[in-house]
């Protein structure tokens, strides 16, 4: 079995290996979504209910940076978070496809 990449440091603390950029950006997207959800006054459960999900676990999956908001669900997420769908999708593109974002909209200010 493959060993976990986290290893015990000299001080007994667990040290993380370098996180790939895509993963780091997904985490930043997740943090941004978490903030928007908090501003909308919704819990993960409430957002999942509004999105018609049986469980709220996928919301957590996305906010923890392990998954993306699926393209086909972006509009519904934006509406439930009280955001403009096109701006919402554009902002997520910045994290999910940074190179495509740069080509379409130039460098982020």
């Amino acid at each position, binding site marked *: 079995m493959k060993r*976990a990449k986290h290893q015990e440091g000299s001080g007994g603390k667990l040290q993380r290996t370098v996180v790939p950029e895509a993963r780091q950006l997904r985490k930043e997207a997740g943090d941004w979504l978490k903030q928007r959800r908090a501003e909308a006054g919704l819990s993960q459960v409430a957002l999942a209910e509004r999105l018609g999900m049986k469980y709220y676990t996928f*919301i957590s999956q996305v906010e923890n940076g392990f*998954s993306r908001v699926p393209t086909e669900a972006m509009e519904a997420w934006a509406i439930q978070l009280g955001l403009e769908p096109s701006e919402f999708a554009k902002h997520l593109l910045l994290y999910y496809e940074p190179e495509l974002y740069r080509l379409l909209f130039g460098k982020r200010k």
Partner: protein
Amino acid sequence: MSVLTFERKQGAELWSEAELHILLPALNAALASEDGREWETGMTERGDAQFYLLGPLPDQACELCVSRICGRYILEDGSGRLLFEHQSLAVIALHAKAAVRSTRWSLVARAVLLWCMIRHTIHEKVEPLLIESEEILVHLAPQLAAFA
């Protein structure tokens, strides 16, 4: 019976040793590949434990997620599709193992389909051209031989 060993990760305390000993061997084939696949653990806002099987580098996107909510286990894919739910983690692990296998088989199926399409294109487009040039050669060969 041999017991597989693994290092516990930071945050993995949300999952018991017994639970990880059920999940990890089931996903052993995926995790043993040298393409950067890893597993991580996390927690929902309400403190429910989540286990993520990450895909290969460089993206390492979630392929499967097992969540434990009130003693019930939920298996989802990386798009939030509910694959299975059950009270027994062993049953969930079996489904997770099958889901990983089906992901691999779908890749094989796509490769085979691509190969068939290439073969079909060659058969449809290139072979008539070859036959045509062969016919021209058959017609020209005696004339060329006469000139020689």
